[in-house]
């Protein structure tokens, strides 16, 4: 097994799926000759040619709109939005068309398409390059919304997303693109979309998170274990929609305390939905109000101050202590 970064792991998933299935196409700005601005599609154009690795003109709406047509006709496009902050140019194609095609035609057509996009802060990028607006997509019926937290699950989830019969929006955390490596087997691996994972076992407190924040939550869990003797159960959602709430409810029934961590804005964020679900499924087990440690309800500031926007290990630890001390 090779130790891969998330960039390399996603590249592996694309390469293997393209080898196995001729209908898989990669398309987007700079994905061909340049191999993508983050090098996620590096080498694919050389290997599979320009017909299958398509450098498109600069038009997100047409990328996703054309991909929808390709998908209806039986191809499996994997689109790249250069940054999630530019995916709004394609939003109406995703919301008005891709997400509704199956429903509108009563099952006659389907749109097996993946729209990959880097998201999130922490890499000193420009405006529009640091946001986490996964909620737009998780809120849209007909789309699936997947956010891996590391190289190995990114690879396995992307393979599943490509094979999924419905449109999947696939967020890739820039902060973890290259920040650590993991063993990723050459042999095919998939993970079911819509299933979370327990990233760390614990009995005292449940922390739910996903994506790039998973690393910070695990760090905070170590701090709490070392300094407070508290064992945190960390749940990494992996998919936001459909949301796998059962393991969260189960964990809360055990720990009685819940903290939710995401870099997305606080209001109407994933945390709000999770709290509603826990109220429905485990309300009587709660021993403290659920805490949210999130991005603030403002636009991510330019990078000199973005760390103050993002949930830090300190803020996560403080949120956990509030839940524990209640």
């Amino acid at each position, binding site marked *: 097994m090779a130790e891969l970064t998330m960039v390399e792991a996603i590249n592996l998933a694309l390469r293997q799926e393209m080898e196995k299935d001729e209908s898989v196409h990669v398309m987007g*700005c700079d994905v061909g000759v340049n191999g993508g*601005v983050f090098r996620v599609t590096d080498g694919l154009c050389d290997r599979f040619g320009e017909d299958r690795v398509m450098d498109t003109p600069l038009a997100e709406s047409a990328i996703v709109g054309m991909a929808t047509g390709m998908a209806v006709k039986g191809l499996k496009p994997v689109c790249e939005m250069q940054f999630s902050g530019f995916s709004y140019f394609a939003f109406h194609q995703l919301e008005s068309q891709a997400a509704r095609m199956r429903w509108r035609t009563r099952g006659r057509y389907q749109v097996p398409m993946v729209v990959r996009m880097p998201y999130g802060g922490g890499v000193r990028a420009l405006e529009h390059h640091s946001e986490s607006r996964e909620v737009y997509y998780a809120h849209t019926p007909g789309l699936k919304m997947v956010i891996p937290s590391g190289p190995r699950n990114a690879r396995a989830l992307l393979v599943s997303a490509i094979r999924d019969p419905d449109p999947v929006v696939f967020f890739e955390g820039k902060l973890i693109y290259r920040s650590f490596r993991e063993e990723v087997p050459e042999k095919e691996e998939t993970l079911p979309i819509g299933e979370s994972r327990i990233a760390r076992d614990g009995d005292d407190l449940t922390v739910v998170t996903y994506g790039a924040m998973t690393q910070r939550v695990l760090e905070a869990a170590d701090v709490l274990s070392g300094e407070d003797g508290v064992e945190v159960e960390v749940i990494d959602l992996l998919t936001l929609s459909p949301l796998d709430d059962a393991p969260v409810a189960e964990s809360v029934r055990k720990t009685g305390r819940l903290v939710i961590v995401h870099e997305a804005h606080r209001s109407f964020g994933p945390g709000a939905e999770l709290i509603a679900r826990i109220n429905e499924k485990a309300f009587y087990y709660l021993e403290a109000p659920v805490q949210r440690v999130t991005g603030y309800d403002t636009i991510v*500031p330019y990078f000199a*101050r973005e760390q*103050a926007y993002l949930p830090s290990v300190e803020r996560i630890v403080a949120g956990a202590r509030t839940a524990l001390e209640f």
Partner: protein
Amino acid sequence: MPRKEIGLESTIDYLSILDTKGKPDKDLEPRIGKELLLDMHRAMVRARRFDEHQLRWQRQGRLGTFAPVIGQEASQIGTVAVLDDQDWMVPAYRQSAAALWRGTPLAGLLLYNAGYNEGGEIPEGQNDLPIAIPVASQIPHAVGIGYALKQEGSGHLAMTYFGDGATSEGDFHEAMNFAGVFNTPTIFVCENNQYAISVPREKQTRAGTLAQKAIAYGIPGIQVDGNDILAVYSAASEAAERARKGDGPTLIECVTYRMAVHTTADDPGKYRTQKEEEQWQKKDPIERFRKYLTARKLLNKKKIESLEEELEKEVKSAWDEAEQRMAELDRHPEVMFDHLYGEMPAYLGTQRKAMTDEDDDANG
């Protein structure tokens, strides 16, 4: 029922005045005052030296990613120079030369590129929109501003900038169409620098020129040698006159070259050859203009040297100023909440206060 050629009303000209040796076509040479000629030269050099310094500071980790203007000074200064203070300028993210001409302070751009929102402040009285990063998204604004200026009957205009890649986005086409329909005083300046990151102009559109896109919207279009400031200035003057008279919008395609990286996160070696870069080096807009000015005895070696010295000092002192402001600003992350709304809603005030309190805790 005949089948015959429609006979389009418009054709597209290509305009070039200075040859690569800086020799002008006498019939086409525009009459520009000496002072303006020297101001334009100074502005081009100033923008270039500023970016050269910025590239160095970026490599040292003092600045973040930015998009250098190097190579496109003529296409920006030649167009922006036809504006007066009451006209409006609507940039994308690579228009530092145009912004500096309009009055944006060097220290402001440095703050922006160092990741401070305060760098986005636009000096009072400077009628420019802020840097717009989502490609083509700013173009319709220049139509709206043009419309408002037309309503005022003031004879002023709006000029907007964008790249070749931007002409593929819907916002570009929709804006051009609206400008035509509402006959707004808008000048669309397309800086065709041959690449949208790695994607060459030929892959952006099958059309032979970008200027000809104007034809479909019923407005005039022209293609100019974008590294020839006299040609750029002439085309922009014509367009401005048209706009001021109430005759509507114009699309100007400036054929130029991005001589540096796309942004500091980019590796041009992946998609273009050194030979190509060298070919364009020979068409350097500053060199060409200098030859012309020198032949006209407006410039000489000594004057150039003293200008270079002066600019070197100016850029360095701008850095000192920016650095000092950064030190003052550093401790106030809560500014991220300010200016989101005209009046801050209560829940945001609470979040802002929590952040200040946290800060106080951290600082003892």
